[in-house]
């Protein structure tokens, strides 16, 4: 049979979870990571990352809005997806998706963004005209009291929401890891480390994404980069990446040392079909190289221009590496037979329902959304000044706490 080596069960020829299912954990990971970066400022009082606080929230929202789309496109019967809310099967890890998603979207992210921006929205509703005024008026939700007392209440609630938001972000992506980690039929997936690895890789990718977006927006707006902020984000990216890489190596070491029934099959797969995406792309280019770049920055001080270039390179490589990790988990887990006696192949189609074209579209969409959101809800004072907001030298950052 073409594309098949050795023996696989006859129903295994076709891969069930495609490129779109690779996107799903990648996108939710970016959401969780971006939110956790935002919470650094709000809960852990890391003032240095303040310039990215609002951007991180808007990034998280943009990706969260797109997160269910690959799943929806993948379903054989997308018109029945509402059944997950109406008649969820309580023993299913996947049935939780709808609830975790809604909780995160409605209770955590939208509420936090609204509270953070409420005073700005009220000001914009008064200073703009025409349809913009209408939009901002709607966004105030009728709450136009921006007295210092009211803002204090906002800040207090916002703090509580963030505190709830951190475990929620952990839940959102840890649960995605659990969907894979709890499949005992698949030894490539079945490990209790999976949710933890997913979580840390999510943080890594989310932090890298915000760093890239921050640099891109500053460049586009011709605003100066806050180097202290950039250095701090790079430092946190390095720390989380070290934890993430250690966990992945622990998983690898455990598998190699234990060498259970599946080991020979998986080992062969990594050395053949997954060599490119796993060893070259994920481990070498997507992990070791950015880790090395970030590590040298912890040891030596380079010029601003060099640091910028290095951080950008490291972040882009990280984003590629984490994407490769998702690919290797989702696709790699379906390339070998559950008989452990053979392998199948996955070829990405181009213009098909689950092909490359819709995948590219789904990856571009959050960036379009974030551009619109940044326009609508300016995260920085410079942008706000055009709408009559008070001009500040420093970026507005997170709230008035």
């Amino acid at each position, binding site marked *: 049979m073409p594309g098949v080596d050795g*023996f*696989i*069960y*006859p*129903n*295994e*020829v*076709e891969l*069930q*979870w495609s490129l779109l299912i690779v996107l799903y954990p990648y996108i939710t990971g970016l959401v969780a990571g971006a939110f956790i970066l935002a919470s650094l400022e709000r809960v852990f009082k890391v003032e240095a990352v303040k310039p990215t606080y609002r951007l991180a929230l808007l990034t998280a929202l943009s990706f969260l809005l797109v997160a269910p789309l690959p*799943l929806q496109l*993948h*379903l*054989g*019967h*997308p018109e*029945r*997806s509402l*059944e*997950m809310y109406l*008649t*969820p*099967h309580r*023993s*299913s*890890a*996947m*049935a939780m*998706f709808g609830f975790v998603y809604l909780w995160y979207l409605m209770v955590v992210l939208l509420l936090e963004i609204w509270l953070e921006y409420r005073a700005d929205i009220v000001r914009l509703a008064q200073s703009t005209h025409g349809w913009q005024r209408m939009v901002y008026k709607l966004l105030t939700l009728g709450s136009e009291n921006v007295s210092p007392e009211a803002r204090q209440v906002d800040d207090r609630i916002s703090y509580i929401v963030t505190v709830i938001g951190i475990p929620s972000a952990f839940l959102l992506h840890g649960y995605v890891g659990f*969907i894979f980690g*709890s*499949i*005992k*039929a*698949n030894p490539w997936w079945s490990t209790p480390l999976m949710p933890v690895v997913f979580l840390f890789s999510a943080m890594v990718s989310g932090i890298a994404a915000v760093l890239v977006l921050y640099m891109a927006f500053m460049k586009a707006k011709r605003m100066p980069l806050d180097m202290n902020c950039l250095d701090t984000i790079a430092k946190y990216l390095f720390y989380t990446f070290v934890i993430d890489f250690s966990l992945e190596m622990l998983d690898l070491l455990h598998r190699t040392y234990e060498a259970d029934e599946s080991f020979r099959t998986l080992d062969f797969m990594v050395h053949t079909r997954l060599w490119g995406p796993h060893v070259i792309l994920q481990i070498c280019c997507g992990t070791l190289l950015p880790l090395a770049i970030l590590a040298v920055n912890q040891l030596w001080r380079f010029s601003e221009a060099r640091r910028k270039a290095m951080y950008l390179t490291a972040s882009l490589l990280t984003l590629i590496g984490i994407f490769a990790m998702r690919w290797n988990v989702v696709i790699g887990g*379906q390339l070998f*037979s*559950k*008989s*452990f*006696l053979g392998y199948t192949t996955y070829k990405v189609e181009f213009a098909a329902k689950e092909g490359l074209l819709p995948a590219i579209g789904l990856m571009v969409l959050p960036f379009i959304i974030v551009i619109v959101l940044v326009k609508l809800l300016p995260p920085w004072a410079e942008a706000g000044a055009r709408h009559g907001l008070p001009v500040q030298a420093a970026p507005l950052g997170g709230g008035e706490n």
Partner: protein
Amino acid sequence: MDLSRRDLFKIGGKLLVLASAGATLEEIMGAAPPSEAYRVADHWWGMIIDIDKCIGCGSCVRACSQENHVPDGYFRTWVERYQVEEGKQPQVDSPKGGMDGYAPATREDLKSFFVPKLCNQCASSPCVQVCPVGATFVSPDGVVLVDETYCLGCRYCIQACPYGCRYLHPEKQTVDKCTLCYHRITKGLTTACCENCPTGARQLVDFKDPKDPVHEFLRHNKVEVLKPYMATQAKVYYKDLDGSVR
């Protein structure tokens, strides 16, 4: 009594209507669900497979395919041929699911045998556990079924099945699998695969029926389920299953 020709036609017509209504009623009664004759609580279905009796003819695969309109390239049941050489990884093949039988083995000196496979009708099914909407379920008489009017086509159950027994139906876009010929067994028939097995290698069994030969079979034979370490409480038992079978 004088009957005009008109009256005769009238009575005849009425009789015809009554007779056809009666026939229709009888037909409806006859086709009524097996609720009266068949009580789900009285059964607990499974299968026993005697590997030594399987000759790899593929009759079961063909019968299943025809009975259940299984789409080409997908299998509710299939037959694997194992050829095992001492100290080496077994050589396994299942061309077209064994549907057309097998060419003679190239080497006579190898341990060779056939293994029919189907859904193991697990009592503790990983596929049922993961379904996000409960579209797949274990029926009260122990058969794992899929409600195709409810299945989302997310394919999580396919990933969760350790035995590769499920597939996405290409036209229906819902998950499909062996139903143990539920439409037949609830009418007192056996499955299409068992009925067409020329050697009796596969036998439908009812664990709740005290008179079922399965009890005698289990008492006198060494049996095993596939991948027992998966702890799925599979109800398809294999007699003298070789350790190399996956």
